[in-house]
């Protein structure tokens, strides 16, 4: 019986991008379904009744929700190819810690950068850069957070790279000037097809952000 894998997603979602990358790394064929978040499908509401959010991974009819959980699920089910998490428990704990750090910091701070102005925006930019610098510290001299190959933290963080241009334009700053090593890492990831095919064009994301700003009445 063939594996049936469906991904309910929304093209600019960094959380959806994580799952796209993981599936591509493992070479898994799947059906991509674009959701209109203003008019959520019956399938989405049925498969994620608690949060009603994307991404939702549906494997042989059974849903898995929450992107970090989905990436780990994919890694565990298709464990024979391109492992994302290391096998040593302590190394796994370090990877999980930093993935959790990305979730706690990058999305919310990034959001503050494009939705606020003045002092609030300056504070968000400062904390955002500080968080990226901590991640740079963790990367060190390794080509990827996962070492020689793309790993869990790489998959979790790199989607935000497609949003950096939008953050920079809205916040009037250069992320590369502050965190050159991180940008070098991101570009290295983008050389991989699993990443480049999963991330949208940065101009497209910026256009989307401008649309949202207009819709929310943000200057």
């Amino acid at each position, binding site marked *: 019986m063939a594996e049936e894998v469906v991904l309910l997603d929304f093209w600019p979602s960094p959380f959806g991008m994580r799952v796209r990358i993981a599936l591509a790394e493992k070479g898994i064929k799947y059906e991509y379904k674009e959701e209109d978040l203003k008019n959520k499908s019956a399938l989405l509401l049925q498969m994620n009744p608690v949060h009603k959010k994307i991404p939702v991974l549906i494997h042989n009819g059974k849903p898995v929700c929450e992107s970090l959980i989905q990436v780990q699920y994919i890694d565990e*089910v298709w464990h024979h190819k391109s492992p994302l998490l290391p096998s040593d428990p302590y190394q*796994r704990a370090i990877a999980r810690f930093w993935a*959790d750090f990305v979730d706690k910091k990058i999305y919310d701070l990034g959001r503050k950068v494009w939705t606020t102005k003045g002092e609030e925006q300056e504070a968000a930019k400062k904390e955002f850069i500080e968080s990226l610098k901590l991640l740079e510290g963790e990367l060190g001299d390794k080509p990827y957070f996962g070492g020689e190959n793309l790993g869990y933290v790489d998959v979790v963080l790199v989607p935000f790279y497609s949003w950096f241009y939008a953050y920079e334009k809205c916040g009037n700053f250069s992320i590369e000037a502050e965190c050159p090593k991180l940008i070098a890492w991101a570009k290295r990831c983008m050389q991989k097809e699993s990443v480049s095919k999963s991330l949208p064009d940065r101009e497209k994301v910026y256009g989307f952000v401008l649309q949202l700003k207009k819709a929310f009445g943000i200057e």
Partner: protein
Amino acid sequence: MVEVEIAKSMAEEVKLFKTWSTPFGLRVVWALKLKGIPYEAIDEDLSNKSALLLQYNPVYKKVPVLVHNGKPISESLVILEYIDETWKQNPLLPQDPLEKARERFWAKFNDEKLLQSIWGVFAKEGKEREEAMAASMENLKFVEEELKGKKFFGGEKIGLADITFGWLANLICVFEEVTGLKMIDERFPLLLAWIQEFSQHPIIKDAGPPHDKLVIKYQALYEKFHPAK
């Protein structure tokens, strides 16, 4: 004599930095006790954090931190998974990836949704409190639904989700006493039954901080949030 020396030097060194009251630290205590892992507990004074804590958790400077043979791990859910992968007896997570995903989902739901909403009822006033109450009721309904046909969230045995929801067993009653608001009532029969089963479990029973001490602490905190007018 020599055998004891060798045994001692080969022993795992497990330290847990926490406070006497933190529910996040208590989770780790439960996991260690369920697996029969000896450990040294260090209760911190958060107004005067030890140099060791700051060294072991420079990113957040928070408890709990588990230190295993000198190597620190922070964030309670990360710690719980580490413990489960390092000490294989009495597993907290099932083998099946889908079931594992389910346990992780509910652990996350507790930390990101349920805890927040109930804390909102405790800490906020007026309209914000009403909204937190409504959200809490919705969240509790989801949790109640998840318990259908199960003794524990993990099935027959305590698992990761049970440990994460465990604060409902020893802390919710404290909140209810201090606020005078009943949150888990007869609308949640499965949750009430689960609270009984969980709190009566031999490992869980005497592992937590004393109820009276918690009431005093949260009473003081409540008065700070809701100063008498």
